[in-house]
C-alpha cells in the first residue's frame, strides 16, 4: 500500500515536470502562426481545390525557407489544410468548426465561388481576414469587412470573351456572327452565362442558342446536337472539369467544331489536358490568371515561382494555384508590415493594400490595389489558348506571351 502511494506521488511529480517543460519549450521556441487553406479537397471540385492547396503550400514553404516572418522574430507559418468538400451545404459548418478550434489568424477562402459564399459570413463573425481567389461578384458585393478578393469578377469574364471574339474577327477575318452559349444550371453557370449573354448581344453578335444543362449530366449528345442544329460559329461553354470534358469529347465524336471560347474553370485546368491530350491544343478560354502572362514571365523571380511549382507538383501553375500563392504572400506581407499576427491588424492593413512589387506583380496588370469593397479593382481576366500542351496567354496583347493560333480551315 505504502509503495503504491509512493509511486503515485513520483508519477504525479514527473508528469507535472514534463508538462511544465513542454510549455516552457514551446514558449522559448520559434512561434508558429496558423493560416487556413479552406478548399474543396474532395468531391467533384477536388481537382481545383488541390491546385489551390498546392499554391498556398508552396507560398508557406517559400516564406519559411526565407526565414519566416522576420518582423515577428522569424515566426514560421503553418498551413492548416481544411477540406470544405464540394458540397455548399457543408461550407458554413466546416468554417465554423475551423475558426472556433484551430486558432488561425487568417484564411485563404475556397477557390470555388459556390463554396466560398456560404463561409464568408462565418469568417466575418469570427473576425478572421480571408482572401478569395474565386470570382463571383457577390464575394465582395455584400459589404463584408474581413473579405478580400484578388481575382477578377465573373461579370468581367463575359466582356473579355466577347472582346476577344471581336478582336479575332478583326485580326483573323473569321467572320463569326452566330454565337451559342451553353452553361451548367448552377450559381456559377447562371451568373457567368448571364454576363456572356448580355455582352454577346451588345457586341453585335447573334445569340443563336442559350441552353442550360443539369450539373453532372451523363450524356452530352443532345446538347451537342442542339449546338450543331443552331449552326453556331462560336460556342461559349460555361462548365467545370467533368462536364467540360464530356461536352468536348462528345463534340469531337459528333464532328461539331465551332470556335470554342471556354468560360474558364474546366477548360484551363491541368485535368483538361490529361483527358484530351494534344487534342486540347487550339482551345481558347477566359482565365482569371495564367502562369505565363507578361506580368509573370517578364520577371525572373516570378517565373522562378512557376518553375518551382511545376517541378514540385508535376503540373503547370494554374489559375487556382497562382492567386492562392499570392493570397498567402499578402498575409505574410501584412504581418511583416504591421509587425503583428493579430487578425484585426492584418485585416486593416489588407483593406488599403496597394502593391506593385513582386507580390502585386503576380496579378495582371502587375499591381494589386484593394478598393473600398475589398475587391482588387485593377485586375482583369486574360484569354488563354492551349498551345504545345500548355495554356498560353494570347489576349489582351499587353498580357500576351504568345500569338493566337487561328483554327485551320
Amino acid at each position, binding site marked *: 500500500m505504502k509503495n503504491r502511494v509512493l509511486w503515485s506521488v513520483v508519477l504525479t511529480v514527473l508528469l507535472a515536470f514534463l508538462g511544465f517543460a513542454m510549455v516552457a519549450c514551446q514558449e522559448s521556441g520559434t512561434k508558429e502562426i496558423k493560416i487556413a487553406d479552406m478548399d474543396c479537397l474532395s468531391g467533384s471540385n477536388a481537382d481545383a481545390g488541390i491546385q489551390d492547396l498546392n499554391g498556398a503550400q508552396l507560398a508557406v514553404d517559400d516564406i519559411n525557407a526565407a526565414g519566416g516572418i522576420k518582423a515577428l522574430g522569424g515566426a514560421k507559418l503553418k498551413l492548416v489544410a481544411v477540406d470544405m468538400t464540394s458540397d455548399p451545404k457543408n461550407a458554413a459548418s466546416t468554417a465554423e468548426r475551423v475558426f472556433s478550434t484551430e486558432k488561425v489568424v487568417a484564411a485563404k477562402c475556397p477557390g470555388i465561388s459556390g463554396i466560398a459564399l456560404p463561409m464568408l459570413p462565418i469568417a466575418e463573425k469570427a473576425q478572421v481576414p480571408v482572401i478569395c481567389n474565386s470570382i463571383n461578384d457577390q464575394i465582395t458585393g455584400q459589404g463584408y469587412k474581413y473579405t478580400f478578393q484578388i481575382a477578377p469578377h465573373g461579370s468581367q469574364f463575359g466582356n473579355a470573351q466577347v472582346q476577344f471574339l471581336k478582336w479575332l474577327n478583326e485580326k483573323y477575318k473569321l467572320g463569326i456572327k452566330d454565337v451559342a452559349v451553353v452553361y451548367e444550371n448552377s450559381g456559377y453557370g447562371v451568373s457567368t452565362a448571364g454576363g456572356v449573354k448580355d455582352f454577346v448581344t451588345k457586341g453585335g453578335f447573334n445569340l443563336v442558342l442559350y441552353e442550360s444543362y*443539369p450539373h453532372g449530366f*451523363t450524356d452530352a449528345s*443532345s446538347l451537342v446536337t*442542339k449546338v450543331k442544329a443552331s449552326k453556331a460559329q462560336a460556342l461559349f461553354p460555361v462548365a467545370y472539369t467533368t462536364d467540360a470534358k464530356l461536352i468536348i469529347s462528345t463534340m469531337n*465524336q459528333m*464532328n461539331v467544331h465551332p470556335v470554342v471560347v471556354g468560360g474558364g474553370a474546366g477548360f484551363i485546368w491541368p485535368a483538361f489536358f490529361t483527358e484530351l491530350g494534344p*487534342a486540347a491544343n487550339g482551345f481558347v478560354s477566359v482565365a482569371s490568371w495564367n502562369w505565363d502572362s507578361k506580368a509573370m514571365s517578364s520577371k525572373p523571380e516570378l517565373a522562378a515561382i512557376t518553375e518551382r511549382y511545376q517541378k514540385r507538383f508535376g503540373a503547370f501553375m494554374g489559375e487556382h494555384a497562382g492567386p492562392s500563392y499570392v493570397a498567402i504572400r499578402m498575409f505574410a506581407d501584412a504581418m511583416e508590415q504591421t509587425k503583428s499576427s493579430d487578425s484585426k491588424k492584418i485585416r486593416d492593413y489588407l483593406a488599403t493594400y496597394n502593391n506593385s512589387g513582386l507580390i502585386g506583380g503576380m496579378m495582371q496588370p502587375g499591381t494589386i490595389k484593394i478598393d473600398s469593397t475589398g475587391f482588387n479593382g485593377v485586375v482583369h481576366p486574360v484569354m488563354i489558348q492551349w498551345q504545345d500542351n500548355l495554356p498560353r496567354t494570347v489576349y489582351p496583347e499587353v498580357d500576351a506571351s504568345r500569338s493566337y493560333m487561328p483554327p485551320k480551315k
Partner: protein
Amino acid sequence: MNPTIFLQTTLNGLMTGGVYALVAVGLTLIFGVMKIVNFAQGEFVMLAMYVSWMLATFAHIGPYPGLLIVGAVMFGLGYAAFKFLIVRVIGKPDEAFILLTLGLSIVLQNLVLVIFGAEYFSIDTPIKDEAFHMGGLSLSVPRLIAFLVALLMVAGLSILLNRTDLGRAMRATAESREVATLLGINPIRCFTIAFAVGIVLAGAAGVLLTPMFYVFPGVGTLFNLTAFVVVVLGGMGSVTGALLGGLIIGIVEALSSTYISLDLSQLFTFLIFLAVLFIRPSGLFGGAAK
C-alpha cells in the same frame, strides 16, 4: 423539322437507351426470380467501374478485354453477398430485404469513398472518342458497343431462362417456391445463381460505361433511379421489357432534350412513365413470361 437533327436525336436516344437497358437487365433478373428489389444494384455497377478502372490503370488491360475478369470478380462478389447477407432474409417480409440492400448500398458507397476518395477517375483508351460518321450523322463507338452488348445480354438471358434446365428451374422457383422444391429443385441454389448472374450483368454494365463516364463513388446513383423506372416500365421481371423500357426512356429523354429543354427531359420521362402505368399498371410486359 430538320430530318438529320431528328435522326441524330433518335440515334442518341437509342444508344442512351441501350445503356439504361444494360443497367436495368440485371435488376429485373433478380426481381423476376427472387421477387425482391436489389437497391444496391447501382453500387455494384460502381464497383465494377472501379475494378475496370484499376485494371486499365495498373495492369494496362482495357475495359473490353477486361470484361471477363471483371465478370468473374463480380460473380464472386455477388455470390459472397448472397451467401453472407441476402440468404439471411430469404422468406422474411419484404422490408427486411429493402433495408438490407439499401444499407448495403450505403456501406459500399462509403467504403469506396474511404478507399479511393471522392475524386473522379477516367480511363485512358483511344476508343472513347471514336465515332462512325455517315451522311451528317454520327455514332459514338463506346455507346454502340454498349447498345449491342445490351441486345446480346437480353438474347442470352432469354435463352438461359427459356431453353436451359437451369433457366426452367429458375422460372419454376419464381412461380412457386414450394412446388419447385417438391419437384426436386433447390430454390436457394436458384436464388444464388440468379443473384450472382444479376450482379455479373451489373458488372458488365459498369465495364461498358467506364469508357463513357467518370468513375466516382456516387456514379451508381446516377443510373439507379432510371434503372428502376426502366424495370417498372418494362414490367418487373421481364428481360425484354427492360430492353424496351430502356429504349423508350432513352428516346423520350433525347427528343425532349433536343426539342424542348435539357433541364426538363426528366419531366417528360416521368410523364411517359406515369402514362404507361396508367394504361398498363403492371408495365409493358408485366405478367408475361420471365
